[in-house]
Structures are given as C-alpha cells and as structure tokens.
C-alpha cells in the first residue's frame, strides 16, 4: 500500500546579487528579459532608477543597492521582471541582474515562529542549493520594508 506524502518542494529562481545569491518564488517571476531602454522622469522614490515599457505596461526598475543594501559589482545583463501585490493590486517590477539565473526546486526552510530569518523581515526562509543556503526573498515584504524605513535609514543602507 502506498501512502501519499505531502511535499513542500517549490520552484525558485536564483539570481546573483552582489557577492551572494537570493531566491524568489518562481510563481512571482514573469520573465527574464534582455536589457531594455531605461526611461526616467522626476520622482523621489530612491529605490526606483527608472521605468521600462514591457507588454504595454510601465515597469519600474528597482535599484538593487537601494533595495537590498547590496552593491552591484557587475554591469547588469538582464532584467528579472517579477510580480508583487499589495491590497489586492498586483504590479510588476524589474530587477537588474548581472550573471546567470537558475531555476531550482527545493523545500523552503522557514524560521521558527517569531524568529526572522537573517534578521531581515523580507527574507521568508532559505533553500539548500548545492550545499549553499540561499535566502528566499518575498518581494512584497521587501518593498513594504523599504517603504516603511525612514529616509535616513534608507540613505545609510545605500552607502
């Protein structure tokens, strides 16, 4: 007799980010696209470096160093277009990526209740990939965390 076992294995997209890699749930990733023309207009949202037009929609490009507090060591080669949502409204954003992205299936290890993984509220857990523990980022929580941070902290983390 066989017994059905519920697994929590999911697909994740791994992308290089500065010196490390992070993972996003594959279901939040729309596409990986070649560099496109970045357009800009005046605004004061520090983590947005411009906008792209993709599939007839305006997609903000999120500045890696502002968003994650990581330096971008290499010139970007692609944009990862991902979806996030807030109060039922979904939106796309583009994250510049330098280097290769990978698709991996793994089981998400969540931190015990009440504890934050990596002390970052937007890291919802980690996945093991080739012996490396890779932080899994919830894009919605990341954007909300940056938005909630006081301007002085945002400037500090960007330095």
């Amino acid at each position: 007799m066989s017994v059905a076992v519920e697994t929590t294995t999911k697909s994740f997209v791994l992308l290089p980010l500065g010196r490390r890699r992070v993972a996003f749930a594959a279901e939040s990733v729309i596409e990986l696209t070649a560099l496109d023309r970045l357009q800009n207009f005046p605004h004061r949202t520090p983590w947005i470096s411009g906008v792209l037009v993709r599939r007839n929609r305006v997609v903000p490009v999120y500045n890696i160093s502002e968003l994650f507090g990581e330096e971008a060591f290499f010139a970007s080669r692609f944009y990862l277009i991902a979806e996030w949502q807030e109060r039922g409204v979904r939106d796309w954003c583009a994250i510049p990526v330098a280097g290769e992205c990978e698709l991996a299936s793994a089981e998400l290890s969540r931190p015990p209740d009440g504890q934050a993984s990596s002390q970052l509220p937007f890291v919802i857990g980690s996945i093991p990939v080739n012996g490396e523990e890779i932080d899994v980022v919830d894009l919605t929580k990341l954007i909300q965390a940056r938005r909630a941070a006081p301007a002085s902290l945002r400037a500090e983390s960007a330095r």
Partner: protein
Amino acid sequence: MKIAPSESRPGRRASRSEPVILFSISGQTFAINANAIQEIRTTDSISAAAAEVSVPQIPKVRHRLRRGRTAFHVVNASVHFGLPASRPAQVVVLRNYRIAVLVDSIDRMETMKLLMALPPGFCGPERAWYRGMTLISENIVPVVNPAGFLTEPELAQLDAAATQAAETESLADPGGAVPMPMERRE
C-alpha cells in the same frame, strides 16, 4: 514562470482620448491636460504683471502674477520637480488653481489616448505630482496633476505672505507694485 492574469491590472488605465500640451523643463518632457491651461505667455511679456514674493519654506515660488482680478502663485517647475536649474521662457497659467508654472518651452499639442496609473512602487511626492503616465512616440511622458504644484497649506502660506506684502506696499508706495523680472536668478 507565468503570464500575469488579466485581473492583475484592474482599472489602472483610462483610454478616453484627451488633448494634452507637451512642455519641457531641463530637458524633461511633461504633459498636461490642455483644458487645465488658461493661457501660455512668454516670461518677458508678463514680467510687468509680476511681483516678487518670499516665503523661505516654499523656494519654488518667488513671484506672484496678477491676471485680471486673480493673483497666481508662480511655481518654478524645475525646482518643484528637483531638476537642474534652467532658464524658463514660458509661463503656463493654470485654470481653476491660482497657479502659474514657469517652464522652459512648450513643445506641441498631442492627443493622449492612454493614461497609465503610476505604478504603486512609487511612493514619494510624485504620487501627487502626476495623474499618471502616457506613451508618446514610445517615450514615457508623465502627465502632471495641476493641483500637485502646490498643496493647500502652501497656498494658504503664500496667500498670507501676499496679503502681508500688499499691506506693506500700500503703506510704503500708494502708487502700486514695482514690476519684477521673472527670470530665475542664478
């Protein structure tokens, strides 16, 4: 990876066509609903109708412009949008807002067929500055919100300063206000 479902962008676009005026400030193009504009003049042609004002908390406004019975607060748009200093040559007088805007040039009139909402990731004052964005010749052009140039508290402050200045002027010079040049001082 997946294609976003169609419900992911509910009510975020307005497709009714609308006449817009395209104008430039420091090399950046903006659009504004043509019906929101009362008149467009060169700075030279109306400098005689302008008086200097000084409200240190609102450095983007340095002049007040009288058109008929109405006084308009003149907003330097390059300061408002945080763009590099420019030499404005045109004044766009807005309808219904008691605001005039200094811009570098008027480019042309266009018909805007699509107004796209500002993506929710933007969370600064730009949410008040713009009604949204439109695509013109494959370029993204922000569509300004006429009410976004000055907030109600700023208007109240400017009105109070204008009243105070008028009282001072009438005491010092019963003949009237002294014309002021409108070019931005470097």
